[in-house]
């Protein structure tokens, strides 16, 4: 039964992908059914931007659903929620009035919540609680924004907002934009609104994490784009600079957290925050360019951001599926208990390797193309005349470059510690390869990573069209001979296909020369050199914690690591150690500075408010009377 539902989900994904692609290419329609839901009815509209995100949700659902056949196909629970989750995510970009949007958005949150808490462990219960709180806080901000805008424009239809927005006062629009940005960025998971994300993604089953991280958080970005470019019309420069700074913080902060984490899936969750940050940098740059009158550069930055959205969906689904396959085989997500999987699970390891190389933006894979485009957009800030703005852009460039370097380090750690050398536990030692359907899901996503990289000249065209529907301008990206992308005329160019060809040619050259020179004999196999020790065990290997140590030390102002060393000695002599416990937990700045005080304040308020709840009906009746009198007096 569950199997059938996952097949249905795959088909639903395929249908979504087809409709979305058609939408990206220009197919537009609207559907209005007034009687289905109250307060405005069901209203759907397909345009290019909606098409992109519908295609993304659909496209990512196909491999994830195929993967789920092998991962969860025998479990009855969770299958219906899975289809609901996909369907609601397909509806969110199509919604074209407040009511439809709110229902689709809430359905998406609830379905993912159900999928998240399905396991009934303490971990998932806690993650579910934090997720529910954060997502509803975000919803509250969104609904306030939508109701305010609805009241001021006199319509609940998104198309009317776009038309009426220029007549509104600038301060009003900025207020609404702030509410939207808060709500949508909470769903996208930027720092400091990210707290739910590193809890929820590891706790969810892996096909769910793949979709949550691959596409659900992207719908937050969809909303941000809709609000910033469509609903509210042109905004001031500070919208853009704010997003640039938020994006820079999320990108660097996300990858720094990912770098020190030893939980494989939580590492991926933090890396999602990083990638959302990169997209937000692109969106912020687009807003700043548009406000400064440089429409062509805004279009370039927006295209780069959209490209990264698509790329991240491909490689993050891939990585989560590969991580899920590891959890499936070993029962653990702890990097310190993994290792040696490249030889035991070659398919999964290959999938994770491709995903790692793609997310580390290595050419010629897809991550490189979008980061390159983002760099090219940011680098052209010299055309803006405001030195303050130039400085913000410069900082964003530095942040993006640092993020790129740290992402390489992070994924060297994830793949190197998790998959290479000797297994660090018996579970990893006896790991076996994942079943066929899971491998098929991973191969689909891995193929997408390669295709999106090598086919950059093809992929960029529809994305450019989508971006141009939001920021009309002359196309800043052109395609030249030899599958080369040209940015802003002669400013920059790249051809991933030619790079791939050059790499392959160079490899052939090296192998050919060595063969001709006769230096291609079989290597001798022997144990690792170990300074004369007798036996090599996994305890001699470098650990994930040790690998991240240089970063912990360099960025100690950020991590503020604490070292706890407890030594329990024998009572007779302190030189006989019975037990040693060492821990170096990292404390998160955001928890200490933001959520800690908020949490304490909430608890204190609740304690005080508890005094009102005496339990006596008479007192409650007195409250009712007092409020009634007060209202009468005010009225």
């Amino acid at each position: 039964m569950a199997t059938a539902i996952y097949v249905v989900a795959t088909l639903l994904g395929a249908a979504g992908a087809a409709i979305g692609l058609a939408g990206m290419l220009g197919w537009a329609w609207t559907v209005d059914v007034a009687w289905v839901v109250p307060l405005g009815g069901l209203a759907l509209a397909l345009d290019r931007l909606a098409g992109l995100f519908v295609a993304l949700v659909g496209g990512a659902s196909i491999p994830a659903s195929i993967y789920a056949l092998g991962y969860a196909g025998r479990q009855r629970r969770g299958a219906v929620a899975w289809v609901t989750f996909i369907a609601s995510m397909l509806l969110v970009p199509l919604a074209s009035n407040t009511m439809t949007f709110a229902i689709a958005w809430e359905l998406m949150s609830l379905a993912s919540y159900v999928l998240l808490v399905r396991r009934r462990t303490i971990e998932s219960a806690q993650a579910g609680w934090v997720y529910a709180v954060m997502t509803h806080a975000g919803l509250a901000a969104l609904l306030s924004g939508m109701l305010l805008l609805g009241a001021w424009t006199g319509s609940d239809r998104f198309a009317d907002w776009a038309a009426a927005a220029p007549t509104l006062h600038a301060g009003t629009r900025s207020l609404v934009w702030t509410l939207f940005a808060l709500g949508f960025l909470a769903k996208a998971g930027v720092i400091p609104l990210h707290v739910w994300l590193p809890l929820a993604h590891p706790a969810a089953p892996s096909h769910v994490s793949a979709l949550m991280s691959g596409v659900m958080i992207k719908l937050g970005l969809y909303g941000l784009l809709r609000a910033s470019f469509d609903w509210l019309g042109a905004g001031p420069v500070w919208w853009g600079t704010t997003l640039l700074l938020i994006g820079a913080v999320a990108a660097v902060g996300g990858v720094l957290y990912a770098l020190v984490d030893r939980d494989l899936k939580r590492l991926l969750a933090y890396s999602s925050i990083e990638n959302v940050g990169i997209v937000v940098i692109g969106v912020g740059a687009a807003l700043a360019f548009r406000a400064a009158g440089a429409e062509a550069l805004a279009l370039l930055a927006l295209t780069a951001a959209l490209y990264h959205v698509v790329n991240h969906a491909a490689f993050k689904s891939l990585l989560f599926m590969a991580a899920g396959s590891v959890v499936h085989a070993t029962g653990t997500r702890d990097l310190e208990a993994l290792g040696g999987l490249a030889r035991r699970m070659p398919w999964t390891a290959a999938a994770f390797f491709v995903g790692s190389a793609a997310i580390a933006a290595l050419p010629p894979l897809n991550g490189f193309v979008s980061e390159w485009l983002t760099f090219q957009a940011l680098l052209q800030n010299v055309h803006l005349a405001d030195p303050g703005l130039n400085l913000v852009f410069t900082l964003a460039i530095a942040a993006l470059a640092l993020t790129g370097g740290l992402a390489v380090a992070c994924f060297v750690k994830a793949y190197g510690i998790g998959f290479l050398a000797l297994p660090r536990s018996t579970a990893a030692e006896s790991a076996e390869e994942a079943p066929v359907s899971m491998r098929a899901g991973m191969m689909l996503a891995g193929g997408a990573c390669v295709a999106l990289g090598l086919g950059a000249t093809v992929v960029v065209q529809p994305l450019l069209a989508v971006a141009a529907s939001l920021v009309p301008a002359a196309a800043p990206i052109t395609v030249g001979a030899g599958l080369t992308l040209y940015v802003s005329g002669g400013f920059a160019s790249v051809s991933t296909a030619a790079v791939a060809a050059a790499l392959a040619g160079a490899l052939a050259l090296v192998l050919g020369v060595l063969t001709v020179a006769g230096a291609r004999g079989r290597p001798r196999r022997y144990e690792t050199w170990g300074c004369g020790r007798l036996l090599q065990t996994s305890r001699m290997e470098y650990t994930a914690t040790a690998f991240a140590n240089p970063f912990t030390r360099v960025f100690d102002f950020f991590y503020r690591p604490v070292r706890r060393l407890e030594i329990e000695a024998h009572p007779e002599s302190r030189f006989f150690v019975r037990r040693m416990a060492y821990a170096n937990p990292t404390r998160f700045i955001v928890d200490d500075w933001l959520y800690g005080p908020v949490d304490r304040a909430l608890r204190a308020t609740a304690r005080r408010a508890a005094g009102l709840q005496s339990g006596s009906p008479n007192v409650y009746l007195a409250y009712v009377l007092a409020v009634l009198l007060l209202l009468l007096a005010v009225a």
Partner: protein
Amino acid sequence: MIGDVTIAVVHVVIMAAGAPLLVGALRTVKARLVGRRGPVPWQPYRDLRKLFAKTPVVSTTTSWLFRATPYVLMSTMITAALAAPVLSSRPPLAFAGIILLMYLLLVGTFFLALAGLDAGSAFGGMGSSRGVAVAALAEPTVMLAVLALSLRANTTNLGGVVEGLAHEPLLAANPVHLLAFAAFFIVMLAETGRLPVDNPATHLELTMIHEAMVLEYSGRHLALVEWASSMKLLLFLTLLANLFFPWGVPAVLGPSALLLGALVLAAKLAVLALAVALLETAMAKLRLFRVPELLAGSFALALLSVTAVFLQR
């Protein structure tokens, strides 16, 4: 097409054949500076020949990645060499910009760091961890130094930067240029594993970075890794020479122009290599955890350079 391929092959042969000589010459000069006779400059060729003749030993714990890495590393270096303006300002991969070049080098770092972890020895892991840390921290400086140059040349294409800046007579006196040069020079020392960041002549466990990563390599694998890292040094010095002193780089492809270009480049490289040798002789290696401070310093220089561009508008 045939002509393009010939030029590309010549390009690669020059970079690959010249790299060991550069490393050998550096060693000889360094030895003379401290009063030793030192090896002959062409000693690295002999070392490479010896290593290629030996059977490599591969650890039993490793996966395919360990054996593939030397070949991948060499391919990325060759591709990077094709993307760089060496003898003329028109590299064979004409579309290439500095960002592509830096990310190609990161491909090599990525593979090498993974190979360091693959053998399961603590040395390799330590080297990988430190290697990627240095590479990651150097990245922002590179980007900002590039930004400073590309803002002035209005392109990020390497050939375009060389041609755009070659027409400025007072280039060397411009603070933008001086600051960016200083920043890029420090990054070059870090990325190629020279003093004061890493000591290419040591095998002391506590200090080595690159040598620790490649400790398990032997035979032709080691030869390829060593050769690739000498090409990386040549590549970085060539970039420094041609991007920051863009005079005398021909903008046309032809036998006589290329010969002239080769002579000019050799002269510039000799000066830069002498500077590196003097620096390495005069400076001690920094403690590992002082290296980030050095890189932060180079980042500050690059940031100042970019700010200077905006002030000069």
